[in-house]
Structure formats: structure tokens, C-alpha cells
């Protein structure tokens, strides 16, 4: 068990999430490997977002953890008070979501918004915070960081906004980043750019990444391990290569078939999956 704790930064055990209407997540258990990348795949209603939101302690009103535990570095976060969450959420566990525009103030330049986070959370002075913000924008692959710094959200494309949000999420150098459908609304070329940024950051910063998507191919680009959720239960889990090569559950097989029969894979040389 102690071995397990060293390997995994988050351990979810028998997590049950319920609302007044009934149980939505039915006692799922999984581990998030430290400095690794875990993909959570499922369609809307599968419970993937509720699982993430449980880890972040931000379940919607009327929905709550009804059983089980979520250990983050030995602390069961399902029992934390609002105050106890403050040094963890956004600081040690950060997140980005699908619609980046809605998380930014439209009337403040994006650089200033990042500076604000850096000043409040890390207590940096104005000049240092500005320099750190530019540095973060550079590491997000934003090509003209000084210009972006002064721009308002409406002046930036969806891909640039999502990079700004990732920069803000990483401002506090968190140990865990959760990206919940963070690339879903983006054009496919931009989606690939943001996924590449996430993969590079994960490796460079020794970040633990939880990548959530409805698309098995999206998570398989980046993640070492995958769990597949359906109707609030884990139907498949394992190393990415194994899940793709030898899916155990019918639903996972359907996801693979979707790509092999109707995706670009139909035209690509077979055997690439093993590489």
C-alpha cells in the first residue's frame, strides 16, 4: 500500500457521486500516477466531468460525493472545508475547461489577469509578476507574448485563449493539471497545437496531467494510461497501448472501431498503433 502511495499522487477509491435524482457515479476507483498522464474517456453523461470536479471539490449545486474517498498526497479531499481547499485548489491542483473565454474578464487585458493571479497567489511584486507572466506565455508557445500580454480576450483566437488559460492554471506551478475537454471546441490543427503544448509541459515540468475527452484518439496522443467511463462506471482501464491494441470492453471496442472504420486510420498503414 505504501508502494502505491509513492507511485500515485491521487487515489480515488469507491467514489460515488449523487444528486437528488439518484446516483451518477457508481463507486469508481483509480490511481493517477505521479508525474504521469492519465486520460479519462467517456461521452456526455458518463461521469467524467463529475469525477474531475470531485477531485477539484467544485461539484455543481445539488450534486455531492456520497461515498468513497479521493486521496491527494494522503489527504482525503472529499472531507476538506472551503478554507482547507484554498492552499490546494488552483495552487497544487489546477484545471482548464472547454470554453476558455468564459473564464476570463472581457474588459481586462489577459496579461493583467495573469499578473493578478501571480501577485495574489505568489505575492510577487508588479515587475516580477509581469516578467513571470511573459515567461509563462513564452512557454505556452504564444508567438508574440508582449503583444498578447496587452490584448483583451476578444482579440485572441480560441487556441490562444486556451493557452492563456493554461498559463494562468500553471502560474502557481501546480503538481496536477486537469484539462477537461480543453481542446474540444478548437479547430483540429489548433487542438493539436494545444495538445502538443500540454504534452511538452507535462514532460518539462514533471507535471501530473489528467486529460479528459470524449475522443479516445485525443487522450491517446498524450496519455500513458487511460480509463474509459460509461454511465458512471469504469469499463476499461490500462496502459494506452494495451487499451488501443486489445480493448476488453465492447464500448472501448466501439470507440476503436469508430476510428478504424470511419477515421483517418482507415487510410493509414496498419501496425502503427504498436509503434
Amino acid at each position, binding site marked *: 500500500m505504501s508502494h502505491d502511495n509513492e507511485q500515485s499522487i491521487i487515489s480515488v477509491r469507491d467514489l460515488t457521486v449523487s444528486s437528488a435524482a439518484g446516483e451518477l457515479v457508481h463507486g469508481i476507483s483509480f490511481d493517477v500516477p505521479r508525474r504521469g498522464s492519465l486520460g479519462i474517456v467517456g461521452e456526455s453523461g458518463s461521469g467524467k466531468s463529475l469525477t474531475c470536479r470531485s477531485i477539484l471539490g467544485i461539484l455543481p449545486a445539488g450534486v455531492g460525493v456520497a461515498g468513497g474517498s479521493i486521496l491527494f498526497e494522503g489527504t482525503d479531499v472529499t472531507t476538506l472545508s472551503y478554507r482547507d481547499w484554498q492552499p490546494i485548489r488552483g495552487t497544487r491542483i489546477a484545471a482548464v475547461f472547454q470554453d476558455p473565454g468564459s473564464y476570463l474578464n472581457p474588459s481586462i487585458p489577459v496579461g493583467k489577469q495573469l499578473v493578478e493571479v501571480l501577485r495574489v497567489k505568489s505575492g510577487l511584486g508588479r515587475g516580477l509578476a509581469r516578467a513571470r507572466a511573459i515567461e509563462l506565455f513564452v512557454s505556452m508557445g504564444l508567438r508574440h507574448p508582449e503583444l498578447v500580454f496587452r490584448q483583451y480576450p476578444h482579440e485572441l483566437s480560441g487556441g490562444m485563449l486556451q493557452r492563456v488559460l493554461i498559463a494562468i492554471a500553471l502560474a502557481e506551478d501546480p503538481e496536477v493539471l486537469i484539462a477537461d475537454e480543453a481542446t474540444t471546441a478548437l479547430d483540429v490543427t489548433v487542438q493539436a497545437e494545444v*495538445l502538443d503544448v500540454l504534452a511538452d509541459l507535462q514532460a518539462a515540468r514533471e507535471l501530473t496531467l489528467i486529460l479528459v475527452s470524449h475522443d479516445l484518439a485525443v487522450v491517446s496522443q498524450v496519455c500513458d494510461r487511460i480509463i474509459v467511463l460509461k454511465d458512471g462506471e469504469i469499463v476499461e482501464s490500462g496502459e494506452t497501448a494495451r487499451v488501443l491494441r486489445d480493448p476488453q470492453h465492447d*464500448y472501448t471496442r466501439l470507440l476503436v472501431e469508430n476510428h478504424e472504420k470511419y477515421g483517418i486510420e482507415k487510410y*493509414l498503414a496498419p501496425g502503427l498503433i504498436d509503434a
Partner: protein
Amino acid sequence: MPESELLRVADLTVSLGHGRRRTEVLHGVNATVARGEIVGLVGETGSGKTTIARSILGLVPPASGSIELDGTDVARLSPGRLRAFRRAGIAQYVFQDPLRSLDPQLTIAASVAEGLRVRGGIDRAVIRSRVEETLELVGVSPELAARRPAELSGGQRQRVAIARAMVLEPSLLICDEPVSALDAANRIQMLELLVALRDASGIGMLFISHDLGSVAGITDRIVVLYRGRVVEAGSTAEVLLAPRHPYTRLLVGSAPTLSGGAADRGRRAELRAELALLETN
């Protein structure tokens, strides 16, 4: 013009906006769709895909060029003839979100019947039987005909939206990301349905998407649009296996596949640099 040709867009230029803000968004686009052919129109947001679709439907007046659909040049119709053309329903459009074409107040049967009623002069009994046939054609059970869109699943709604288009017996069906909002099981069924409709009726289809991967499995040919210009067109296999334009190469490299990995990341970085270079020249 070959016998089988259904749509020929030639040198289409479209400008949008008024006065000084008028901007050319399509710069001499050429594309064709044959009868019984499924063509993918692929490009990023703002590349002009939807403007092409709207032009074919006669909703956007072109600045120059022609749009020959089933023997009619849509670009040169007078306003009166354009209305008649639209009422005839030769080209039909299926949205990504079926709720955009379904009135929440109307029953499924009434929604599907609407186009026939607008056309006018059709007997009510004939309309009823055409609606029944069409719902059956798309795999919607007759019990659902009296229900409203809110009572249907996403997959059923998309089938109804397709029925609403197909009931007019169009020659061309334009599908804008028709499966991207559907889950895995419904996605496969929907693609199989569209192929079956094509096989049965010989209808031509134009599939609009930002993702090559989502059209690859169903299209015969692919047209790649980049910043209002066609940069590549060819059979699906040609475009995917031997893309020539840097943007097409980036599109192929960016489509999420089950075989992706770190090696692809390096390749994509090269492709982005190549495209950036092309833009600065």
C-alpha cells in the same frame, strides 16, 4: 459537362459586409460534386466553408463566378426565381445541431412535413404518406412521429433533421459537421445511414468539417479550403496519403488518431513552421 455532374462551383468569389468593411472571403473557388458522390469540404474556422454552402443554397449573392446545380446557375437567379429554387428544395442543409432546424413546438411529423406544405398544392394524404416513408427511410420509428424534439435522443433528432431534408427529394445534401455532436454508437449509425441514403437515391453530398479525420471514412473526394481558397482537391486516399499543400499536410498531421505520439509532435512542429513560412512569403 459530364452526365453525372450535379454541382459545379466555378471561380466563385464572395464578399461579405458593407461599405468600407466589405471583405472578400472567397477568392475564386472551384469545386464539383457528382451524383452519388460524397465530397468533404474541409478547412478551419473562417476558411469560407459555410459561405460556400450558403452560396449554393442561394443565401449569399456571389460577387462573381457561377454555381451550377442540377442545370441551374444559382448565382444568376432573379430574386423571384431564387425563391422558387429554394422552395423546390434541390439543395438541403443539415446542421450540426438538429435543434437548429426543428421547431420545439412542432411534432416530428409536422416538422418533416413542413417543406412539403410550403411547396404547396400537395394533397394532405400524400404529405402524410411521404412523411411516413421518409421517417422509415432514416430509421425513425412511427411511434415517434407524434412526439416533440425534446422527447427524442440526440441521435433520433439528427435522423429527423435528415428526414426533414430528404422528404423534399433534394439532389444535393449539405451536411455541416453532422456527426460531431453525437456519441460513438450514434456516430457510426449516422454515417452508415448517410451512405445508405446515397446508395439508394444517388443523391450527392457535401460534408463540411474542420477535421479531415471525421470525414475520411465516408467521403469519395476531399476539397481543402484555406483562407478562402481551395488549396487541394483529390480522392480521399490521395489527399490523406499524399497531401501536397503544407496546410493539408498539417491537417493530416493534426487529425487525432489512435496511432499518434511524440514522433508526431516533432513532425507537426515542422509542418507549422513550413506553413508559417508560406504565409510570410
